[in-house]
């Protein structure tokens, strides 16, 4: 029998270009050498290792698909996916940090911003000198963002912003928040994007503490009380819910890939542990019940890799629809969550220890399962697409 790579049973590696593999390897190497030694301490303390942000900028992972003229690396959609995969091999919180900065802050500024806004923000966000966050979800509006209550009232020279945003990754850290709000007394069609800057009068943040998931990621609430946002800080290129939803598409695409990384880490850890841990004088990986688990994990990982790869191709050709991205986000995270939990089982008692890392991933994936569109809502998106019957309006 030919030697096999247990983490690449379908030789998916060959489907990527050399450049894409090199990008992934560079990020993975950084994650292993620089990030993994830090994560335990930060996870326990409930902090994000801010010291790695300049290094991430140096690597070039922020807004990696955007053009070089804004300080970005202009890599392919697939390479961007592989970056997310490598980052989430480390921690879902790390991937979240980069996804938000790239897909939810740099992307809307690039796509809907004025040239002046692009030149002002993109190079600083690319280098990590500035951090951004994205405000869409509200305390009373999660799966139904169109119901948002945050409003921007037109005044001389700009808008007065009032309302609150909830569950905002990087909220307290951010120098700039891309905030979505309804204008005047308008409905969902009036939604505009506002660049709210740290220090603007009436803008406050509060951090969610005591989370049991994504502990190495800062999650915050944002509050706006008569915050004056000048006209030059409004994204001119988009109106309506289409704006924020197109950003979520970018982020969900990254999550579909990120899940592969978390799953791969957990599967590899379980495989290693199963081969090393001896009971009844033999490695536990030799027992049938454990082999079934490992075989199921390997099969699911292979499927996830193939879905991510195909989605990357389609995205590169600009043919990846929101429904395709939704399917990949939902199912890859679902599979990753199962793999992480099974990896914890295989580790036995060791599995509950932070040092074995797998339960950290399993806990993180609880958040990933319900953020950026819950698992259930993603089923409804596909349900509507294949039946033509919307289950919600």
């Amino acid at each position, binding site marked *: 029998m*030919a*030697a*096999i*790579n247990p983490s690449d049973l379908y030789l998916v590696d060959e489907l990527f270009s*050399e*450049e894409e*593999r*090199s*990008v992934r*390897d*560079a990020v993975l*190497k*950084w994650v*292993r050498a620089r990030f993994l030694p830090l994560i335990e301490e930060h996870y326990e303390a409930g902090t994000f290792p801010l010291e790695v942000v300049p*290094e991430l900028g*140096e*690597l*070039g*992972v922020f807004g*990696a698909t955007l053009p*070089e003229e804004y300080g970005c*690396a*202009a*890599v392919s959609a697939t*390479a961007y996916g592989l*970056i997310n995969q490598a980052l989430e091999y480390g921690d879902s919180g790390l991937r979240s940090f980069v996804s938000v900065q790239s897909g939810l802050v740099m992307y809307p500024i690039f796509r809907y911003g004025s040239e002046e806004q692009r030149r002002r923000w993109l190079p600083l966000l690319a280098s990590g000198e500035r951090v951004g966050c994205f405000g869409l979800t509200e305390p009373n509006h999660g799966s139904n963002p169109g119901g948002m209550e945050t409003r921007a009232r037109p005044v001389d020279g700009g808008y007065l912003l009032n309302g609150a945003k909830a569950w905002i990754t990087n909220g307290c850290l951010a120098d700039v928040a891309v905030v979505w709000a309804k204008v005047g007394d308008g409905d969902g069609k009036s939604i505009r994007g506002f660049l709210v800057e740290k220090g603007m009068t009436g803008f406050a943040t509060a951090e969610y503490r005591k989370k049991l998931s994504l502990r190495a990621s800062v999650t915050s609430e944002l509050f706006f009380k008569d915050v004056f946002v000048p006209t030059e800080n409004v994204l001119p290129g988009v109106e309506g819910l289409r704006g924020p939803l197109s950003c979520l598409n970018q982020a969900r695409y990254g999550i579909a890939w990120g899940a592969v990384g978390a799953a791969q880490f957990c599967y590899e850890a379980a495989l290693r542990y199963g*081969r090393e841990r*001896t009971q009844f004088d033999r490695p536990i990986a030799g027992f049938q019940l454990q082999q079934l688990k490992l075989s199921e994990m390997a099969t699911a990982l292979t499927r996830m890799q193939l879905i991510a790869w195909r989605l990357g191709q389609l995205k590169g050709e600009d043919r990846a629809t929101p429904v395709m991205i939704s399917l990949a986000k939902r199912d890859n995270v679902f599979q990753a969550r199962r793999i992480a939990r099974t990896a914890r089982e295989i580790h036995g008692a060791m599995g509950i220890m932070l040092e074995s890392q797998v339960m950290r991933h399993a806990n993180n994936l609880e958040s990933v399962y319900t953020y950026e569109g819950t698992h259930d809502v993603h089923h409804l998106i596909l349900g509507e697409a294949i039946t033509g019957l919307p289950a919600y309006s």
Partner: protein
Amino acid sequence: MRIVVIVKEVADTEAVISLKDGLPDLSATAMVNNPYDEYAVEEALQQADKLGDCTVTAVMVGREKSKENLRKILAMGVGEAVLIDDEALAGADPLQIAQVLKAAIEPLEPAFVLAGRQGVDYDWGLAPLALAELLGWGHVGLIAKLEITGSAFKAETEGDDGLLTFEGSLPAVFTADKSLNEPRYPSLKGIMQAKKKPLETKTLADLGLDAAAVGGAAAGLKLINCNYPPRKEAGRVIAGETAAEKAAALVKALREEAKVI
């Protein structure tokens, strides 16, 4: 001015190596650049920055597939690369590799050559030393610091008894220890630029070498068998009510069973 840095591929240090007929089967194993060589690359890049007007050339003995890893070296900032790819080199020993490297490197007329202290595959650490000998150049191994002034060098190594300082004249060969520097990560932009940099492939014939002499078939040193290290036995907990009892039981076990005291 030119600095040559020698790079080789090794099996991914995270990979589980399978054996086939008593020899490592790397056919499905991911290969990476030898970690020690990355210290050599970093040093070459830093020295080139200091010296100015300096080309860094990476030289690797490998196969067509190795270009991917060689381009990662280019992505770190190295200017150009040479891949020596010849089927006959499978199984070549370090002395033969050194002969091949000599033929490739001598015409490049480098001011000096840098390499990692050893490959993390077999840990032999022989080829750079043999290369220095064949070239008739000076050699300092396991350097922790390097200063180049004109055609002179000063190199420090960390010996068992303290820091050793060597002075000599260029050209010379140095092998890098971990304490030399902190290798940079190739940036995504570097990776995108790497494909535009020159990468030349040469066969033994291109180098004017005879495969019958430097090929693996004529190797003087042959790997004939590999085994996995023996599995570690589980440890034993010494029982006892008090610390004194446990200590007594431990001493007894060390003396009578392990026979080490």
